[in-house]
């Protein structure tokens, strides 16, 4: 395994936390520059993929067990859709963020942030799920 050479292991240990942070930075700075939930989700997932590559799928699965990825998947989507429903209860149309606050501007801002977060969560969950499944598949096959 490549981890035996330890170069990869050390470097990735070093880099994974910053990558994750960078992902979250992209997540929350989508308003100001390029980026947003989707990109953030992918980057977050790629940090994870890096981890899985270096430390193996099993360890990765321990960090993100099936229930967690599932929860991430569902929670993000629910968050997004839930905001819409919430605005509906506040008297606006579906996804009308202006309702979220007295000041429409602040409402929009809040709404965008929340839904972007939802997007990010789902995307990260989805990407991690997909990758781990693709890789986890190997063992099942080899055993047969």
């Amino acid at each position: 395994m490549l981890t035996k050479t330890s170069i990869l292991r050390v470097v990735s240990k070093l880099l994974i936390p910053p990558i994750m942070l960078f992902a979250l930075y992209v997540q929350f700075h989508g308003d100001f520059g390029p980026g947003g939930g989707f990109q953030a989700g992918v980057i977050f997932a790629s940090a994870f993929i890096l981890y899985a590559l270096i430390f193996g799928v099993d360890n990765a699965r321990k960090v993100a067990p099936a229930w967690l990825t599932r929860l991430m998947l569902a929670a993000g989507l629910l968050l997004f859709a839930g905001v819409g429903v919430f605005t509906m209860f506040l008297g606006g149309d579906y996804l009308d963020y202006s309702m979220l606050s007295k000041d429409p501007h602040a409402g929009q801002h809040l709404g965008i942030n929340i839904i972007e977060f939802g997007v990010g969560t789902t995307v990260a969950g989805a990407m991690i799920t997909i990758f781990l499944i693709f890789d986890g598949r190997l063992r099942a096959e080899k055993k047969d």
Partner: protein
Amino acid sequence: MLHALSLGGVLGLLWLLLSGIFEGWLLALGLGSIIVVVTFANRMDVIDREGHPIHISWRALLYWPWLAREIVKANWDVARVILSPKIPITPKVLRINATQVTELGHVFYANSITLTPGTVTLSLKNGALIVHSLTKFAEKGLLSGEMDRRVHAVEGADDNTVISNEHV
């Protein structure tokens, strides 16, 4: 725990550098992000001396300029070789024993070697490096052991504990 905290600190700095916006809202988000990242990192078990080598950072800063100079020199050398019509290369595979104590040090050394053009680390195992060198100049520079010594110094001579490697 200490590592986690310091990681948090470093990440916080990174956040500020990246963001460049100092509004309360974003700072709060940044804090939240850091907590999330640290939690995940903890789960991943990457927070240790290896993964977060805060203890060598100061010495490393001094090492960098030297390395940069080496890189420039090596670049010049390799560029000359490439551009000369005959491509006068003398590729060699060398085996070198690194004198560093920790694996982190080995990695540091190996990467420095690779970073300088003309030499590429092919393999690193328990302090034994196998290096591919392209030119005589690179070979000489490598065999002189200068870099080895410097990396060892960065690592910190007093630090003799070998990190147990649970992933091997």
